[in-house]
């Protein structure tokens, strides 16, 4: 009796080892980095499997943990066949894993090379499948209640005048100018990343920078201070509490009509219209004005970190299946519909027109001949540590326990040190 039991146990163990290595049919494994798009990707993957029989697994990294998840998933035998590689820094890390996509069907579907990441010899290592824009999201209905319209805001001075007035009458109006500029980890990237893009962009534009510079001067940091001071002054939230103020809190203030302005990007559109029920016609996105000369001609900050890369170390069959899946996503009815809903305008021939009004704003401003503020922050060396230093200094400055000089040091000296660390 015992012998039989032991034999069975041994057999089960042996089988479980065998099972791990069995069955190798072509499959697609997509590592997605946008938690807000997870459900849409899962549905699309299921639809593709139902249509073609090819299994598609979609794994979404939890917010802010994409790099970690990618590293651990890549180390596995069944590594992702399709993943995100969106910045020069990511390409430096993952270049060995990126397949040259030039000559593939999905690449042939593209309408522009602008958002693609290329190697030294013109290899297409990652293709930008959508682009995004950020700026100051504005609730036009509330603005009208306060007696203004978006046409009144054309530069920093007029933005400040409107915001100051709304803040002064906040009690009477029942809402304030800006939603909280939270510096908790769930929100601080809006400022250490996106808002910091303003001084970086203008400095790089002046100096004609095309790759990560070893040092920066911080020439436009006064402008950064202008806009930051405005955010924390003309807001209902006490600046001393910003250290623990979250992104959700800020979104809710704007979503429930407690603030007119909210700095964020095109990706928040469905949150605002679906979750908070703000009519799309009440929403618009303004450029971030910070007092730079000629900024009345600025458009929104547009760029992308959403680039697909195909794992060159996957098996040929899996690579083939992945490329087929990508082509299907950007050409099929289901795929293009989902892409337009989730990601807005996509640079592919069969892409659909998105309903997202923020993109309409982005396109309108560009068609008026205004200049696009590109994503200069994509050059940031050792981005997490650099931002952590800036956020810490910014938090202390806002709470009144630190000074602005510390922010400048974290910004300028921090950049040089992180660059040295990265390349040393």
């Amino acid at each position, binding site marked *: 009796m*015992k012998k039989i039991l*032991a034999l069975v*146990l*041994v057999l089960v*163990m042996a089988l479980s080892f065998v099972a791990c290595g069995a069955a190798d049919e072509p499959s697609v494994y997509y590592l997605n980095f946008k938690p807000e798009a997870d459900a849409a990707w899962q549905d699309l993957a299921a639809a593709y499997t139902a249509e073609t029989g090819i299994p598609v697994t979609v794994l979404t990294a939890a917010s802010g943990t994409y*790099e*970690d998840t990618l*590293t651990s998933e*890549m*180390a596995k035998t069944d590594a992702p066949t399709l993943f995100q590689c969106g910045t020069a*820094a990511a390409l*430096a*890390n*993952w270049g*060995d*894993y990126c397949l040259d996509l030039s000559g593939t069907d999905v690449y042939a579907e593209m309408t522009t090379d602008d958002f693609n990441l290329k190697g030294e010899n013109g290899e297409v290592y990652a293709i930008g499948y959508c682009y995004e824009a950020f700026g100051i999201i504005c609730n036009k209905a509330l603005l009208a209640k306060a007696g203004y319209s978006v046409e009144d805001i054309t530069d920093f001075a007029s933005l400040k005048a409107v915001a100051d007035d709304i803040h002064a009458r906040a009690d009477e109006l029942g809402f304030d100018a800006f939603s909280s500029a939270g510096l908790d*980890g769930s929100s601080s990237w809006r400022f250490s990343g996106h808002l910091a893009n303003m001084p970086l962009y203008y400095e790089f534009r002046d100096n004609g920078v095309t790759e990560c510079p070893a040092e920066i001067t911080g020439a436009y940091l006064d402008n950064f201070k202008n806009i930051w001071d405005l955010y924390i002054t003309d807001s209902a939230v*006490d600046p*001393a*509490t910003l*250290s*623990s103020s979250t992104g959700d809190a800020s979104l809710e203030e704007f979503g429930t009509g407690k603030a007119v302005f909210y700095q964020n990007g095109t990706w928040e559109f469905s949150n605002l219209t679906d979750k908070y029920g703000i009519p799309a016609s009440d929403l618009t996105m303004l450029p971030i004005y910070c007092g730079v000369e000629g900024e009345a001609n600025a458009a929104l900050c547009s760029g992308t970190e959403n680039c697909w890369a195909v794992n060159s*170390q996957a098996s040929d069959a899996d690579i083939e299946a992945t490329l087929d899946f990508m082509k299907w996503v950007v050409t099929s009815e289901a795929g293009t519909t989902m892409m337009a809903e989730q990601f807005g305008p996509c640079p592919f021939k069969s892409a659909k027109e998105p309903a997202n009004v923020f993109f309409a704003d982005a396109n309108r401003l560009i068609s008026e001949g205004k200049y696009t503020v590109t994503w200069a922050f994509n050059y940031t060396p*050792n981005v*997490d*540590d650099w931002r*952590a*230093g800036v956020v*810490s*200094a910014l*938090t*202390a400055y806002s*709470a*009144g*326990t630190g000074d602005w000089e*510390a922010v400048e*040091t*974290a910004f*300028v*000296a*921090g*950049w*040089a*040190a*992180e660059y*040295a*660390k*990265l390349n040393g």
Partner: protein
Amino acid sequence: MSDKKKKKAKRPSGSAVTSNLIRKPIQRWAPLFILPTFVCFCIGFIWPFLQGIYLSFCNFMTPKDAKWVGITNYVKAFSDPSFGRAFWNTTGFAVVSIVLINIIAFFIAYALTQAMRGANLFRTVFFMPNLIGGVVLGYIWSMIFDGILHRYGTYLEANATYGFWGLVILVAWQQIGYMMIIYIAGLQAVPGDMLEAAKIDGASGWKTLTKVILPNVMPSITICTFLTLTNSFKMFDQNLALTGGNPITTLADGSKIAATELLALNIYSTYNISRNWHGVAQAKAVIFFILVAVLALSQLYATRSKEVQQ
């Protein structure tokens, strides 16, 4: 079958396990019983550990593409000033939390082993924080601390002192209950006749505590100090969730001081710099392992020697 059973039943209970009839078959099958655990131990511990040591000598993005670089990573690890700072932060934190946790846990245990109403309820309540995960605790406590500090116009991450004591309070709150349980077990094992003898001999309460009870609970002290020491050195989740190393000061030369960063968090952030730092983080982890092992073993040796035979 039934004959065997009868025989077994007749034997005096104590000798049953030592009987050859039972021992022989068990011994023969021992490897089979050990095998599953041993395999798990190899897969989950031995192999990753060896691979980790190997990787500390490599430059790598994932373990699949490791390239041997010799001791470069160790040179970089030792010349990184943030590693040294994190070490001293950790040491300070460990000393304070070991002392606080053990003293408080001991006295709570002492109080709860005296005859008092609701002792069991208190034991349960004190133990409960231990059931909550570190990251959750970190976020909850950061809200509590910030809630209090906001009243005074400041916040938890404003300076290193708040962050340090915040972490000490959090960890004390979490671990005191656990250590208390161990001390209660120790205190209950103190022989009643010894206590009675001390009482008859007219020993004061303090004398009884220091001369009779303490020597007898030395095994509990050994295990509790060991646990608090290793826990403090390995502290990661709570550190990450409570302050994440903040406040971070950038010096004029651009180098950063993360005032509340402990060793494990330092290793974690080193790894995230770029692929060239993965190996350095791995090297730091190996140094970290040796450090914790040496400390823990010498502590075990030191406190074991004070234990008495009952």
